[in-house]
């Protein structure tokens, strides 16, 4: 079984090395415990800093977008690459250090045990790590939008920690380019009747990750972009 970890990255030179080192440590542990082959791909989304150079030093796959295309564009590139290398699972994580690599096992488990096609690592059902109140409001608003648009109930529609099996990888086709892609995944899950499961994950909110993450106005932008997508 092959797992490809997809890290969309845009100007992450300050943290990408630590994130990759931490990830590789955890991968070593997982490999010892199971027979899963794990590879990492960084989708450098048109960074203007040394993100690509630093990532390449870690001897992993690096795909370079010539221009910044946004989260949705970078995720789709990662998924496309996963299909190309015939990966059985694709796991996405943020590259700003917000996600704890120790949660990988938790997120892939429901798929390995055939309980789900897509697993979302949810910050909202986690007991560990505190989500700042403003961020909680933003996530809740985005969840409501996701429910209204796609009829899918989720506790964390904006989570970047998710895992897809081969079936989901083949069927999910994202049209949106930016942050709204996180919500669009749910539309694809519903459309293709994929089994969704949520597992609690730990969140590490730092000043850096807060700056890099979604702004609180994002739920409004997501709403506008999704309206456009529906009318296309």
């Amino acid at each position: 079984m092959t797992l490809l970890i997809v890290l969309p990255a845009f100007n992450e030179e300050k943290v990408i090395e630590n994130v990759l080192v931490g990830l590789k440590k955890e991968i070593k542990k997982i490999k010892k415990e199971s027979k899963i082959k794990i590879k990492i791909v960084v989708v450098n989304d048109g960074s203007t800093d040394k993100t690509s150079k630093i990532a390449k030093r870690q001897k992993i796959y690096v795909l370079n977008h010539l221009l910044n295309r946004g989260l949705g564009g970078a995720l789709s590139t990662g998924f496309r690459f996963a299909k190309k290398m015939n990966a059985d699972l694709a796991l996405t994580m943020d590259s700003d250090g917000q996600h704890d690599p120790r949660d990988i096992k938790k997120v892939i488990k429901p798929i390995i045990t055939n309980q789900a096609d897509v697993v979302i690592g949810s910050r909202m059902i986690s007991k560990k790590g505190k989500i700042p109140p403003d961020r909680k409001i933003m996530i809740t608003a985005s969840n409501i939008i996701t429910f209204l648009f796609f009829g899918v109930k989720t506790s964390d529609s904006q989570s970047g920690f998710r895992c897809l099996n081969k079936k989901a990888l083949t069927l999910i086709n994202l049209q949106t380019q930016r942050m709204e892609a996180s919500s669009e995944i749910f539309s694809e899950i519903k459309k293709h009747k994929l089994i969704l499961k949520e597992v609690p994950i730990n969140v590490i909110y730092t000043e850096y990750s807060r700056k890099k993450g979604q702004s609180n106005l994002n739920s409004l932008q997501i709403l506008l972009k999704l309206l456009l997508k529906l009318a296309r």
Partner: protein
Amino acid sequence: MISFILPIQIILSLFIFFAVSRVFLRFREGSISAHSFLFWVLLFVLATVGVFNPKLTTEVAKFLGIGRGSDVVIYFSIIFLFYLIFRTNVLIENLHHEITKIIREIAIKDHENKKKS
């Protein structure tokens, strides 16, 4: 007859002539389709009729239950402009999507080429 032409009618008809000439040029160079060409020409023909025969717009206004002919033109123009902005937005989104596809292909091809060499 000419003495009845108002200055505003001259200004508007000159603008319409300019707009139609642009539509024709874009069609000739292949930037717009035959459908778009017909649509714009028809729209400007209607505008010309409205400019030189304002009574006709008043008739339409009466039929629709709106007070004045100029109000009908304004109402329809606003609706049309909203629709146009919306269509342009959708078009821009589609273009973004196409650009992303190209960028993706280049990223993956680049990676494959590096692997080969």
